[in-house]
């Protein structure tokens, strides 16, 4: 699905402007890095796309849906088409890694056998087969992050939003995850990745959007991760 943001501004209480007049257009099947210093608005942008937040001003459409007009009963169905890797994982701590994945699939009403197969498959893909029965508090940070990735990709969403998917991973594992994201993208899914990971951004060049104080500062087809003094 394609994403269109036009003049999107997000203002929080106390006049904190997290996003300001953002125009962004992502075609169906594109891969996009979202970079920017901490607090520049990456997570806020992704949250607007997952309809956790509603833009204070501006238009957001994903596929043929106007996010401002999604009703209470339609929201779950929208969310099933959008896979999200949350920056803080948001795993259920009393479910095992495998159950964390399968319960998300179950919530979509899929029959048990399909759920089991798919959950096993993605847990294996993120390299957690041997850890699948452990619960999040028993997993290392990187392992938790991979459970979060597995859960987000399990439902084969049309849009994949990943907030720092390699923030807790070593370089080798990061590379594997990046390859996974690229393969998801290759299957036609639109992928947005918010990241600070310079190594990855430079190793796998893709469209790169840089946020600065809530505004888009750069939008390049095969951008490199640049520091302020390198601009």
């Amino acid at each position, binding site marked *: 699905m394609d994403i269109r943001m036009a003049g999107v501004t997000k203002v929080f209480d106390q006049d904190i402007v997290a996003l300001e007049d953002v125009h962004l257009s992502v075609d169906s099947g594109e891969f996009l890095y979202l970079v920017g210093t901490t607090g520049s608005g990456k997570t806020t942008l992704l949250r607007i796309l*997952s*309809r*956790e*937040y*509603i833009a204070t001003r501006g238009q957001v459409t994903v596929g043929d849906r106007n996010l401002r007009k999604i009703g*209470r*009963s339609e*929201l*779950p*169905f*929208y*969310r*099933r088409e959008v896979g*999200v890797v*949350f920056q803080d994982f*948001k*795993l*259920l701590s*009393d479910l095992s890694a495998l159950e964390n994945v399968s*319960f*998300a699939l*179950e*919530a*979509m*009403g*899929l*029959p*048990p056998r399909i759920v089991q197969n798919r959950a096993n498959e993605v847990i294996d893909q993120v390299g957690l087969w041997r850890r699948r029965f452990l619960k999040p508090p028993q997993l290392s940070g990187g392992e938790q992050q991979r459970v979060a990735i597995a*859960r987000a990709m399990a*439902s084969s969403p049309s849009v994949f939003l990943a907030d720092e998917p390699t923030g807790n991973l070593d370089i080798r594992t990061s590379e594997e995850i990046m390859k996974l994201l690229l393969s998801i993208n290759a299957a036609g899914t639109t992928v947005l990745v918010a990241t600070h990971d310079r190594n990855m951004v430079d190793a796998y060049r893709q469209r790169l959007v840089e946020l600065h104080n809530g505004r888009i500062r750069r939008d390049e087809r095969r951008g490199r991760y640049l520091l302020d003094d390198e601009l």
Partner: protein
Amino acid sequence: MTSFRYALRDTFRLLFRHWGLSLLTLVTAASVLYILGFTGLFSLNLRQMISRVEGGLVVQVFMKKGQNADPVVALVKTMPTVTSAAAVSPEQALEKLRAKLGNQARAVTLLGENPLPWSVEVQVGRAEQIAPLVRDLIAVPEVEEVLYSGKLVERLTTISRAATTASGTILVLAAIISTLVIFNTIRIAIYSRREEIEVMLLVGATRTYISLPFVIQGTLLGAGGALLAIAGIWGTYASIMNAVRTSLPFLDIIVDRRTLLQFFLLLFATGATLGWVCSWLAVSRFISRASRAK
């Protein structure tokens, strides 16, 4: 269908993963329903005792000298409020007087001819039905005098009314309090799972999918609490029945198994319904709050 199976499994997950919490909720529900049930039984018994006392009230109708009791007995048979009517001959009346006087009975033996008239003893079911009955009886020409313990009837009427109001009020109060406590407990228990609810919403679970396990859980806890409460009440009440039977046999407490069974079924239904409605309300509010976009 599948999602109902998931819901059932999740219910047991909720119940057993957080078994401490479940146990606390269960015990709280049981305690509260115990109180509610006991209050209910108490009201039932109160009403029964009062109606027994009321049923024991007697109106004495004295006929004019030389008249027998037939006209009054005939009239009284047509009245729906009258539960029994017995004619008393002058001889029977004298016997009774003697018995009643006890040690002063010698006074009676000093009488020559039996001076007492025919009379009828009439009983009704409820104290407040006495006043109209008396009015009708006095209108009968053959009747000399109608005697009843006016003050007692008055008292009983007010006591009966007061007891009805009181037991009703107590029951309503107990019901309100039970609902409050159970609702609060379930809400607090759900409050401690708010993260779970938020995460489920974020991955696209529907409201029904999220709430079903909580609602089933609430219903089970309510029903389970009710069962515990019933067991407790049965235990206490059985020992009360025993104690009453041996040491206060004149107290008319309810021992009829059919009545008690119905009562317990009602309590069970109340517990399950309370658990159901309360958890549904609580979880709905949470879902609404958590799914509000900022």
